């Protein structure tokens, strides 16, 4: 390991760092970042990675809206979110940085290593843009280091446009004193499929970058790594959902492509076959959920994955699944709405549509993972819930989880988990297909192939024998049975634990992907003596019992959500954020909210600021 720094190099010890690589699309920034993140995870560091994706496939080069790249946050501790402003940025042009500046990704002091070939561009406009940006960046307090990155690559490759990402990787390895060997292994892992020549030329560029950094840079950082106790896996939330589907034993994923859900199927298009499953790309979302329900009805509980607009189209079938009590797992990777909205951006805007979306009383279980690991574990759980409670389970993730990458302990795999509760013995003579337990509403279901279980499923109001109801009371009874399952489900739902003290001045309630940021902000405020705690909800419908009691122990309760709410100034007319509405209706506690629809994960720093504001004089309502 070459650890020899030149004499003039200043080494700073840090607990964590946020690094970005930003470029036009197609310049390989994401590959480099992914390798760098994996390398950190292997060394025992906590990591959170998030992709920076433009809205178009190939947006114009050097444009604000075209910023493409990756952010890697890593440090000594477990990382749970993308953090606040970046510490170090590697940028291939100055214009894409404006896309990030608009999203407040940088702060005074952020170090930017900037490709400087533009300053000698033949194109006067580009030249001027570059010069202007440099002045502006300085005004903003960024520490810009211009570097001839492509030129430096030219010595090692004919096509620096394509190779510079690995060069950058090498530089980062040197700057953060990571193991070069491990980085080279990562490259092997990344490019292995493409053959040895490709691997070698990329490794060469990485080594060159390492050497170049050593020659030219005068700063370096050191970060401690904790030995990791368990074997880890590292992936993004959509891959975790995909693996969760594989691990759940569900052997059919029926979907229609939609951002940001599609990558679940990209992963499973290949992988699902490895556990004997099949991926069906349907002609549309309605067909996708219908196909899944058909399979579930036939005893092979299936999964469908979509995002908001797709869920809208599935609404009618959601009602059928509830009414006819067919187990179904529906994963909704939320994106910005309403309508087509912000297809690649994060929002938690589909909670109330998931709970109330279908006409009539259509109670469905709604859960929301809060970490990448939970994206994995919640799928087998959802399948089990769907089968036990014979109905629809909606799993709400979001674009933040979908693209966020984080290591977590490698799950154990047992052959038994693939058992399909697929009864083909005889159905008890005379037993109705909906043999509702009067107290719990629960019932076993006959599956085609079972002698004696023959029944005709229907979306019409029906008796326990699934016969069309013509008298008034049947509909009342069967509605009651479907609702009872909710109370029964709650029986086994523990009241969630408050993070922080059990009482205090402010309780922040969150759900889904905001967990990491909220906890980080709360911990920071608590370390300063602020009486703030947080409660994170994974079960959204039904809610766990006991929430009212918890809320009453705090002077203020406020949700933090990524969805729309009116500003406080609207007073009586104010429309609340989605969880806030739902908690108000359920607990009658005057729950406030703080939310926005910037399409960005909410950063811990902003939550912290809001906590301070709320707890300051006048901040208390």
């Amino acid at each position, binding site marked *: 390991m070459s650890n020899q720094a030149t004499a003039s190099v200043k080494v700073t010890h840090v607990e964590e760092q946020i690094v970005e690589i930003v470029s036009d699309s197609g310049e390989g920034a994401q590959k480099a970042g992914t390798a760098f993140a994996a390398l950190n*995870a*292997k060394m025992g560091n906590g990591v959170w990675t998030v992709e920076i994706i433009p809205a178009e496939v190939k947006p114009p080069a050097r444009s604000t809206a075209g910023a493409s790249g990756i952010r890697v946050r890593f440090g000594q501790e477990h990382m749970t979110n993308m953090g606040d402003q970046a510490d170090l940025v590697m940028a291939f042009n100055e214009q894409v940085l404006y896309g990030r500046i608009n999203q407040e990704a940088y702060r005074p002091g952020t170090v930017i290593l900037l490709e400087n070939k533009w300053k000698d561009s033949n194109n006067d406009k580009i030249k001027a843009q570059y010069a202007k940006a440099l002045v502006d960046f300085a005004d903003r307090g960024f520490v810009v280091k211009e570097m001839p990155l492509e030129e430096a690559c030219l010595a090692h490759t004919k096509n620096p446009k394509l190779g510079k990402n690995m060069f950058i990787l090498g530089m980062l390895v040197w700057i953060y004193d990571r193991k070069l060997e491990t980085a080279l292994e990562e490259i092997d892992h990344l490019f292995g499929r493409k053959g040895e020549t490709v691997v070698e030329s990329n490794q060469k560029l990485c080594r060159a970058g390492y050497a170049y950094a050593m020659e030219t840079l005068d700063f370096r950082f050191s970060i401690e790594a904790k030995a*990791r106790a368990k*074997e*880890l*896996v*590292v992936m993004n939330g959509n*891959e975790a959902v995909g*693996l969760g589907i*594989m691990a759940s034993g569900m052997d*059919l994923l*029926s979907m229609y492509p939609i951002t940001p859900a599609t990558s679940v199927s990209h992963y499973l298009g290949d*992988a699902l*076959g*490895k*556990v*004997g*499953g*099949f991926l069906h790309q*349907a*002609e*549309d979302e*309605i*067909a*996708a*959920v*219908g*196909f*899944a*329900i*058909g*399979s579930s*009805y*036939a*005893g*092979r509980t*299936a999964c469908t994955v979509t995002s908001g607009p797709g869920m809208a189209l599935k609404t*009618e*079938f959601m009602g*059928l699944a509830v009414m006819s009590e067919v187990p179904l797992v529906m994963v909704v990777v939320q994106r910005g709405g309403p309508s087509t909205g912000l297809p690649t951006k994060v929002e938690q805007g589909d909670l109330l549509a998931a709970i109330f979306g279908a006409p009539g009383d259509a109670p469905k279980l709604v859960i929301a993972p809060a970490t990448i690991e939970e994206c994995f574990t919640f799928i087998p759980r959802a399948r089990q819930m769907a089968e036990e409670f014979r109905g629809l389970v909606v799993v709400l993730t979001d674009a933040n989880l979908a693209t966020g990458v984080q*290591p977590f302990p*490698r799950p154990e*795999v047992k*052959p*038994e988990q*693939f058992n399909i509760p697929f009864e083909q013995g005889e159905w008890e003579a005379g037993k109705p297909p909906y043999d509702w337990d009067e107290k719990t509403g629960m019932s076993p279901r006959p599956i*085609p*192939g*079972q*002698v*004696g*279980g*023959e*029944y*005709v*499923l*229907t*979306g*019409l109001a029906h008796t326990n024998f699934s016969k*069309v109801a013509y008298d008034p009371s049947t509909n009342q009874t069967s509605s009651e049975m479907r609702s009872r399952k909710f109370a029964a489900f709650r029986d086994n739902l523990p009241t969630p634990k408050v993070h922080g003290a059990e009482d205090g001045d402010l309780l922040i309630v969150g759900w889904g992907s905001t967990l990491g940021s909220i906890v980080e902000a709360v911990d920071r405020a608590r370390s300063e003596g602020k009486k703030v705690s947080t409660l994170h909800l994974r079960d959204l419908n039904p809610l766990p019992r006991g929430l009212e009691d918890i809320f009453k122990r705090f002077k203020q309760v406020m949700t933090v959500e990524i969805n729309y709410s009116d500003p406080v100034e609207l007073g009586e007319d104010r429309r609340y954020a989605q969880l806030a509405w739902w908690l108000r209706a359920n607990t009658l506690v005057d729950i406030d909210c703080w939310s926005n629809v910037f399409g960005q994960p909410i950063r811990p720093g902003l939550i912290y600021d809001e906590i301070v504001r709320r707890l300051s004089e006048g901040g208390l309502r």
Partner: protein
Amino acid sequence: MSESTTPVKAPHLFTLSDYQSGIARWCPGCGDHGVLAAIQRICTEEQLPPHKTVFVSGIGCSSRFPHYMKTYGFHGLHGRAMPVACGVKARRPELQVFVSSGDGDFFSIGAGHWIHGVRYNMDMTLTIFDNGIYGLTKAQTSPTSPLGLKTKTHPHGAILPPMNPIQATLGMTNLSFLAQTVDWKPQHLKATLQAAYKHKGLGIVRVMQRCTAYTADLHDEWRRNPEKVLLMKHDKGVPVDPKIDKAFKNQVEHDPTDINKARELGDRTDVLPIGLFYVNPDAPRYDQMTNAGLEMSNEDKAKGLNAALDKFAVR
């Protein structure tokens, strides 16, 4: 070996009543009754185990079909019979799947699944009950309502030319079996449905069906004038009982593997062609693709999942 000494259990013989469930609540004289009788007879002849047979439908009078079969059934959503049926078949190849759908259910709201269902070509039998009207909702215009037909939504008469679903289907990719018959010729009806059942792939039968409540005289021309019905005959076609052959005054020899001839016949409006328009036993079947991996053991699945996790492992 000891197994050989076990006496062979005589196969259970299913009788007609094993398929009959209650009294069908269609109007008296409704053509659906005849289709039900035909299918129940086919089930009996083919000895389909009721517990391995699934009738899937949408919403409409004709979609009540599953309720009158003592098999498994799925009376789902308006227009969505095909996706559900395909899902049933996808991972349960041993189940025999039948689909019942109306002209509104299939050609109107279900039209997207029509073209894609044909392309999937999964092994099942599809009956489209075409009465040229929305029956259950009490007489609105359907895509096959003839021009000028007075309906509740078009009290002055339907204004668009009626859809020709035969021709449309003949244009669709991966078509494997398309036939047409009428509810009032029980022998031909049954023979056609049975041929569709025996076909390996999606057997589509359009049944011209009388709705006594709303389009009672829609089929009069064909019923009263035998010349107006054109029987398509061929060795590879729907077998016609020689006893009733003569009842069809107007016949044509038609090789159902000839798509061009099929399309010419499909365009005819002077007569109603019945029999098999087109068959292609070699059309790829999606059900043979969707059942991939069914035989995999739990141990192999565990291995597969572990291998998948390896790729994400921080080694």
